[in-house]
């Protein structure tokens, strides 16, 4: 316990900074990732845009704006005690579900890469409600599983069922899009929350089995579109398709592999500048890091993520508030599985899905959501002293 008291002293010393009570390691790691991400987005788009007579800083500018808005959202998230947010959770969740319903309505939702996941707004902006639904699910479930009227160590079965309903409604809507990557990440996050909530291992194992069953049934019954199935098949046999999904995955792997230890140098990746890897500023941004920054750069990114996750685990352990712990746990599951799915896809460890890389990929909704998640982590941290 002496360690904790030392830390308390440390934070009391920082009372006067803006992010007073925030975790500086966490903040530094996220800031570094945002800087790396900005460079990578620019590197991914600069050459190609310039060569095609477009503004080479098109994506750079938008990305910086996204980060600015996301940082404000994160800062805003830290201002109010997260425990006071509970009152707004039903509204927040309801808006998320509404958004997910809207994308499925023809004419309102926009389909990209086979998934009907976006709502187009005037001015060329698009919102991906699933990103914001992640937060709604995590916070909603955490609230239900932590608010117990009794002193039992275990959540009641009814609590668990309610929590699952809160998760299941948006997840089913996301599967309808279909966006299997996001559905996978949310499911992983849900199971993480339930496991840490103190529920019996039967629940955890049961849910894991259920998730696998749903995946199998979805593949067999055609809920998953042919497009998604192709992506899954090329994961199993990358040579099956030479121009479509398999082509993308092979190009991604060649870009990363050719980077070697120190990479080709920022802005100097021929595979990137030749635009051989598609969607490189969003889902395949890690290939830019792999090619231009090499194993050192790619390894640094993974290390920074590991650092963030370790800090988050520390926060989850330190807090005495069960709600804060479950929110933190949910965010850990979300970030970890999203990182693993995205980088794993570019490395050929995971099937191809359209999942962005937290703090790095270009894309407003994802940037806002992950930065809000970061804000929530800092919020729990700042108020963990009790």
């Amino acid at each position, binding site marked *: 316990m002496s360690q904790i008291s030392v830390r308390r002293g440390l934070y009391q010393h920082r009372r006067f900074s803006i992010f007073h009570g925030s975790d500086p390691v966490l903040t530094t790691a996220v800031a570094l990732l945002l800087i790396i991400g900005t460079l990578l987005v620019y590197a991914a788009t600069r050459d190609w845009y310039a060569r095609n007579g477009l503004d080479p800083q098109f994506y750079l500018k938008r990305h910086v704006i996204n980060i600015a808005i996301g940082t404000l959202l994160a800062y805003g998230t830290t201002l109010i005690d997260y425990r006071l947010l509970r009152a707004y959770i039903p509204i927040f969740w309801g808006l998320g579900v509404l958004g997910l319903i809207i994308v499925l309505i023809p004419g309102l939702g926009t389909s990209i890469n086979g998934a009907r996941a976006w709502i187009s707004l005037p001015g060329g902006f698009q919102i991906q409600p699933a990103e914001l639904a992640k937060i709604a699910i995590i916070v909603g479930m955490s609230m239900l599983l932590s608010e117990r009227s009794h002193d039992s160590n275990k959540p009641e079965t009814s609590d668990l069922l309610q929590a699952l309903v809160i998760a299941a409604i948006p997840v089913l809507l996301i599967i309808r899009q279909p966006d299997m990557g996001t559905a996978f990440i949310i499911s992983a996050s849900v199971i993480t929350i339930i496991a840490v909530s103190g529920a019996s291992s039967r629940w955890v194992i049961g849910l894991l089995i259920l998730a696998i069953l749903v995946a199998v049934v979805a593949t067999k019954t055609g809920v998953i579109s042919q497009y998604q199935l192709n992506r899954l098949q090329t994961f199993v046999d990358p040579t099956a398709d030479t121009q479509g999904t398999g082509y993308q995955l092979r190009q991604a792997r060649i870009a990363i592999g050719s980077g070697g230890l120190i990479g080709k140098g920022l802005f100097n990746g021929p595979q990137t500048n030749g635009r051989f890897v598609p969607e490189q500023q969003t889902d395949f941004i890690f290939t830019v890091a792999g090619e231009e920054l090499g194993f050192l750069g790619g390894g640094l990114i993974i290390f920074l993520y590991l650092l963030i996750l370790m800090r988050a685990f520390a926060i989850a352990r330190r807090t005495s508030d069960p709600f804060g712990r479950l929110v933190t746990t949910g965010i850990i599951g979300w970030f970890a599985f999203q990182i693993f799915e995205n980088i794993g896809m570019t490395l*050929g460890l995971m099937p191809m899905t359209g999942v962005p890389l937290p703090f790095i990929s270009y894309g407003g909704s994802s940037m806002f959501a992950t930065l809000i998640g970061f804000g929530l982590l800092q919020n729990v941290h700042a108020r963990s002293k009790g």
Partner: protein
Amino acid sequence: MNQRSRLSLLVVQILIVSLMVALLGRLFYLQIAMGPTYRDAALSIQSRDVVSPATRGLIVDSSGVPLALNKVGLAITIDRIAIDKQPDKGVAVMARLSRLLKLQYANVYRNTRLCGELPTGQRAGCWTGSRYQPIPITKSADPDVALQIVENSDQFPGIDAQPIAIRNYPGTVGVNAAHVLGYVGPLTEEDLSGENGKNFFRSESIGKSGLEIVYDSFLRGIPGIRTLIVDRKEAITSQRQNTPPVAGDHLVTSLDVRLQAATETALADAVLRGRANGYTSDSGAAVVMDVRNGQILAIASYPTYDPNIFEKGLTVAQASDLFSEKKAVPALSRALQGLYAPASTFKSVSVIAAASAGYNLNASYKCPSELQVGTRLFQNFESKSQGTMSLKKMIAVSCDTVWYRIAFDEWLRDGGLSPKSNPNDYFFKAAASFNFTQKVGVDLPSESSSRLANRAYKKSWYQQNKDFYCNYKERATKAQQTPFLILLAKENCVDGDKVRAGDAVNFSIGQGETVVTPLKLAQMYAAIGNGGTIWQMMVGKAIVKTDGTVVKTMKPEKLGTLSASKETIDFLRGALREVVVAGTGTGAFAGFPIPISGKTGTAEVFGRNLNGSLKDNTSWFASYAPSNKPRYAVVMMVSQGGFGASTSGVGVRNIYETLFGVKGNKVVPGAAIFPDGKPPIKLPKISPATKPRVAP
């Protein structure tokens, strides 16, 4: 936090750390362990090599006159990248172009497809180069047509006219030399696969036959490479390397264009003379060599073809004519690939055999009209008895029966059909001492080995044919079932593995199964002329860089020495001189001012021609000159050309006339091909513009 939650959190943490470590491990595997593999893969995706061919080295004669050079042609090229961008993929453009050039659209289409784009079996004529270089449709366009294309560039997007280097065999003073020079052509898939241990660039041309293939690694040079980095849309983003081409080295040969042209003419005339005398005269060969060092001064084969047809674009008809039996297979180089019975020219071997067997070369012998060997009668040529005379005279008048006698006696002495364990085999050994079965080692591809029908040959022949002759009735065709052939088959079955009396007798006059290439016979007569040295025969003399530095000199090697005493060789040289002075060669060389030594040969050939006629005799004349101080060996052979003297002998005389500058039985001063009496030793200055020396 309760215990269960604490434990769950730890499990989740371990799981997540493992996932991150897995990512790191996989990243390490891809970038560090597999890095080189992916780097290569990336390079092949991003980079495009544009090859600019090197100027091929010249092939020149011993005084520097070009036999092969590079000409500028006007090529009409199609840029695949440009025409593929057309809405119809260039169909209209190519159709317009084929009308203008009077070509078939289907051919133009095929010529512009990469081989991999076409289904197997329809790839003939496909482009073996890369998509990034202009593909030539013709290399010899009419300048007016080219101008039309360039001026109407909007009508012909992606089509260009540009000068291009084409290999050219200029045929100075009418020289052909197609079989010696060979030709160049595109690379095959086999070449490209690196199976031959060489690495090529797709668009390179390489030597396909003759000197062009043998000295290809020198002549070819190193092509220039521009490596372009392209993007996904194949647009060029940058240039990575740019190495200029390095021109190929020149090949200096020992040939002389004027002598080569004269040799070709003399051979063609000999063939026509044979035909005029009623013989089939289907083909022939002639060789002129330096007896002192084995260098070939001229080498001709008839029939021949235009060596430029390959660069012009071989038509199907031209290609099939090259190998057509009706046209006597012009592609075949008779001088080094043709095998013929040497007939009486082989008596030089028999002289050495008789000497080693102890026969007195200066004694007199009988030349009866025929000799009974077992049950068969072996007749003298034209069945004439020549009476008793010296062995020298026997050579001069080409008596056969004296050699039958000696060969038969020696055969009996060696045990006949039940040979001694260690037979003398004087005849076989005399032939072997000429390195008879070894190739002459000429620097030209596909030289045939001459065949010596000795005891070992008979044994291996029997192993291969025993089944056929011992089951003749079942194996042979109806047409082969004549009483004579059935009898022969029976004999072959019984003792086909043995040298029989008839074989020994035939061997002594160069008939039977012993066959020789014209080159080999030239090498043998050169050895007699130079006193016994068997030289490797070569056409190439030196490889010279474009700046004049000598890269390599090729010196023919001494392959062996004739095992005959000086007296025997002297006797033989006297006898060969006698052939021309008072023998079978006298008529052909009547009044010739330079002393020539040689031997006629008229070989009987079994079998029938395509039109059913019996095959005519092979006409030979093998010689060297000047007789007192031999410098040159000249051999001519005309297949089915009739008598040795009248067909080939006269042909050889014609060659000597050019060689020594003889006109009307007189030596014209300064008119000899080599005024010093010997081929040049100094290497010439090399220029495509060098002209042959004009004789006064």
